[in-house]
């Protein structure tokens, strides 16, 4: 499995040359998919439209904000705007957890790239709860570092976020007969075709949520 930390290379080069060249910054920061590798998969038919809207809003902030001005995303507000009341009520612990998280800070470097950061309070660095999806219970565990931090590369069709070592979140999800996994997330690719989460441990399959071909 290819695990090239391209973002580190780009960051190191930029530090050396004082960000005088931009050509390297125009390349993706997450590893390309591996056709023969196994993936944990899920399907979300309506995902394409939701992500398209998100990527458009991100493009507007990235391109039109004054230079040097960061922009923010609040997790709970987004969740509430996209979830049904019933789903929110059934999963109050998760909603409450997301609501307590600070906004994610995005700081653009150029048209395509930037840095992201999320500081977490000490009492919000672990979560163990059960969520209900369609009547099926899933045991969820979350372990967050004091700061989630990384770099991103984007176009109007994709957002890639590479998280630095020691600044990554770890997740577990378990449901009898359906899934049992725990993984640290190294890189996240959000596009209009789906969402791909690259795990830090090569022996743990990556996660793919497809937006087409859903049953």
């Amino acid at each position, binding site marked *: 499995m290819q695990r090239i930390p391209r973002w580190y290379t780009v960051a190191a080069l930029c530090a050396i040359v004082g960000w005088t060249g931009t050509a390297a910054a125009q390349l993706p920061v997450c590893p390309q998919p591996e056709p023969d590798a196994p993936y944990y998969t899920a399907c979300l038919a309506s995902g394409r439209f939701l992500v398209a809207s998100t990527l458009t809003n991100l493009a507007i902030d990235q391109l039109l904000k004054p230079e040097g001005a960061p922009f923010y995303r609040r997790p709970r507000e987004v969740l509430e705007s996209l979830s049904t009341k019933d789903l929110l009520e059934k999963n109050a612990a998760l909603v409450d957890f997301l609501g307590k998280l600070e906004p994610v800070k995005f700081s653009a470097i150029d048209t395509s790239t930037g840095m992201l950061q999320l500081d977490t309070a000490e009492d919000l660095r672990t979560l163990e709860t059960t969520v209900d999806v369609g009547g099926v219970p899933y045991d969820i565990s979350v372990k967050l570092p004091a700061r989630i931090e990384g770099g991103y590369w984007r176009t109007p069709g994709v957002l890639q*976020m590479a998280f630095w070592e020691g600044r990554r979140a770890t997740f577990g999800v378990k449901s009898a007969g359906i899934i049992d996994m725990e993984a640290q997330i190294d890189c996240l690719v959000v596009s209009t075709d789906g969402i791909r989460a690259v795990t830090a441990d090569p022996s743990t399959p990556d996660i793919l949520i497809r937006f087409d071909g859903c049953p």
Partner: protein
Amino acid sequence: MSVAAFVRIGAGAAVLAVTFGAAACSQPAPQKCHRYDALSLTRDNAFAGKLEWKEKRMIDAAPERIEVAMTVIRPIRGPIELVHVVGDVEEDHWTLSVPDFNNVPTSLCWIAPPNGTPNCGASLQNVPFSPLGYYYLRPGDNTVLEAGLSFYLCD
């Protein structure tokens, strides 16, 4: 639905989104089709870039396609051209008629193989198509702020 939350809180919500928004997790398995994000074309690189392509896979049949994602100031003022050069030869030249949809500043154009469904009037004429090469964008009379190229390939 938590997909946007997944996007916005980054890895912090990855598995939460898997379970909360898309419950059909299954045992790990290889996938037939994959998206390869390749280039960003912006003012920073004069809307041009070279793509090294190490995959053996090529585009030859739907649903495979090239996706050109663009942020363009509205209204659209005529076609936008994308040129593909291999070596010194202009291999492909696509004229994209970008739909002006509700003044949304971003657009996705699919350049599809002959049996596919292009949505901006441009198709792949020469298949199989290898993504390898040099690409540049000609905005015409439009103010293009950025573009991204990706390739959707299947086994």
